[in-house]
């Protein structure tokens, strides 16, 4: 009797284990900010992820060689309320309760930094989107992979643009929002400007939520720089641009973070004209198979045009997709490519595939640092857009780098 019971028990356990190991989908877990201050950007990022879900699942899923079949992707996600505390709880839940195979970060450097700690503790691979911070990658993490160009290379192109526009330019003023992200970006830009032989005549932060920049502008006018760079987020950047125009600050380059790359920036009318901004991605970028061939790297995934079409089908407001959404799709594609290369869902094998990855997608080149800043993005480049008049209408056009531009860079002085 006892033998029969043991046999039953063994059979039952074998069956139970068999059931739990018969994988029928790849679970990708993340949080998004359905509520709270990061809602708008996070929602865009989510649209990008949805586009990837559709892209991959209409093909039947991702081919996993070790299982000999395609597995569809299943999303598990929660609302993090734009709060670090929620992120910490929810990523633990995604890993422990929901058994996510892979993770995607929330939006923003701040939330990603929190999610990264949880992912690293559980040795789960996490693709970091919506976060440009460098500091996440100097902590020795081995499972976090960044899609954005990091802060240290975010605004350096503005200095190159200034030099191209006016080779005799010698002075730069940097005014930035006192947040981690903007401060990191502007410090890196300052160091880069100094290395190019420029003088940084003003380097000063303003409190988040500042609405009156008169004092800064009075100072800038007295120092007569050739470029004003900095900014922080949308509201302050838009106000700064407006007040620079109203008080006629005559410089060659005005380059601000975030704000000018948002379509609503055009609300300030003429004050938007000739303002430039770095962007991770813009509709109009020339990333395609030909460009990949030139760099001698493989091309992967759908085209820019396909992404734009799919985005407009989801969004329905008729607006162009921005880089937040593009990065969402790009993260999915990078994960898909890594799983296909590894041929298994084993974290170590996928990690090895990510380390070796050097690929071009519609989002641009993607390659990860494997040295001291393990996981930091080193392949992707920023593009610069400028608000110009096209047929009497304000439009943002790609003006930098020269190989990706749609239009010529114009001096901000032309406003006056």
């Amino acid at each position, binding site marked *: 009797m006892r033998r029969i019971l043991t046999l039953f028990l063994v059979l039952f356990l074998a069956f139970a284990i068999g059931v739990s190991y018969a994988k029928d989908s790849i679970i990708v877990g993340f949080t998004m900010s359905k509520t709270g*201050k990061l809602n708008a950007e996070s929602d865009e990022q989510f649209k990008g992820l949805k586009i990837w879900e559709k892209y991959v699942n209409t093909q039947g899923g991702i081919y996993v060689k070790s299982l000999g079949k395609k597995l569809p992707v299943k999303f598990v996600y929660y609302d993090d309320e734009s709060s670090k505390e929620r992120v910490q709880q929810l990523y633990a839940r995604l890993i422990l309760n929901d058994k996510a195979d892979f993770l995607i970060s929330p939006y923003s450097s701040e939330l990603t930094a929190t999610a990264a700690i949880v992912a690293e503790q559980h040795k789960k691979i996490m693709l970091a989107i919506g976060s440009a911070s460098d500091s996440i990658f100097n902590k020795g993490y081995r499972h976090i992979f960044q899609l954005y160009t990091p802060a240290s290379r975010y605004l350096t192109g503005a200095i190159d643009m200034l030099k191209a526009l006016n080779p005799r330019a010698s002075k730069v003023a940097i005014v930035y929002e*006192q947040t981690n992200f903007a401060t990191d970006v502007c410090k890196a830009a300052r160091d880069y400007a100094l290395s190019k032989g420029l003088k940084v005549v003003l380097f*000063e*932060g*303003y*409190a988040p939520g500042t*609405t*009156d920049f*008169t*004092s*800064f502008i*009075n*100072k800038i*006018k*007295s120092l007569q720089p050739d470029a004003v760079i900095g900014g922080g987020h949308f*509201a302050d950047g*838009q*106000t700064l641009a*407006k*007040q620079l125009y*109203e*008080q*006629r600050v005559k410089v060659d380059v005005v380059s601000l973070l975030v704000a000018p790359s948002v379509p609503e920036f055009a*609300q*300030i*009318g*003429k004050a938007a004209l000739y303002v430039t901004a770095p962007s991770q991605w813009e509709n109009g970028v020339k990333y395609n198979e030909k460009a990949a061939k030139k760099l001698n790297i493989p091309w992967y995934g759908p085209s820019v045009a396909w992404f734009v079409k799919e985005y407009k089908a989801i969004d329905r407001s008729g607006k162009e997709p921005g880089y937040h959404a593009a990065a969402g799709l790009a993260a999915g594609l990078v994960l898909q490519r890594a799983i296909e290369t590894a041929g298994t869902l084993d974290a170590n094998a996928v990690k090895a595939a990510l380390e070796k990855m050097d690929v071009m997608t519609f989002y641009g080149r993607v390659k990860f640092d494997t040295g001291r800043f393990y996981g930091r993005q080193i392949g992707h480049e920023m593009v610069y857009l400028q608000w110009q008049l096209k047929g009497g209408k304000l439009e943002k056009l790609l003006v930098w780098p020269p190989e990706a531009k749609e239009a010529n860079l114009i001096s901000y002085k032309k406003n006056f």
Partner: protein
Amino acid sequence: MEALLAAIITGLLLGMVYGLAAVGLNLIFGVLKIINLSHGAFIALGMFGAYYLFQYFGLIPFVSVIPVFVVILIIGILLYFIAIRRVMGRQELSTLLITYSISLIIVGLGTFFFTTNPRSIDIPWESIRIFSVYIPATRIVALFLAIICTFLLYLFLYKTWIGKAVRAVSMNRVAAEYMGVNSHVILATSFGIGIGIAAIAGVVIASIFPFTILSGGVYELKSFVICVLGGLGNPFGAIAGGLILGLVESVLSLKIPVGIVPFIEFILLVLMLLVKPEGIFGRR
């Protein structure tokens, strides 16, 4: 030199707006002897009044001051009879609590209905050149609006019967009542006018800077400094205090980091309290 000139002009323009924001606070303190902690909330309500009148009726802020003032005046009079009257003459803590709770209610409802996304009213007016300094036309109109409002308040307080009654109640409430003044009506009107002017300041600020429902707090804080500088209880002292604060902010920040300026402003406040607590134009 040019930079200094620019700083002085922009400082004076801004100072006048600060002053206007503080006038209402000072009027209420002078007449009702209460510190109105809902001042900032009414400034914010003025901002949103201007925003929606601009959005839906195309009224530019300099026109919408009139409807906004009238509505807030009525709200003020009602609030006096519903809430403030119950705590008149009680300890300071009661009046502080009641005005603070009004503020919490307004800001809470405002956050719910308007969210905290920044709004702005964009009037496509060009800048005007004064000497070598370019000043946005909206700021110059804001300056004139602030001057006109102050002048009208002066006319009201010194040339009308109700205004004289307001001053009488502020000087000696009991004596004023003996003279046949219905003090509750006067106090209610004063409260209404006080927050009405706060709302006008909100309208003016909204025409220059972006704002959220929380923006009133910044100006409320500045208003306290201004009132102490100019003299508590004297509405016109507030204008002087505002101009001083605007100039200090603007000129000092030419040479020192802008982030340190508020620190200096509050040191000024403490010094004023130590040396001349009644303020420049205050009464002992």
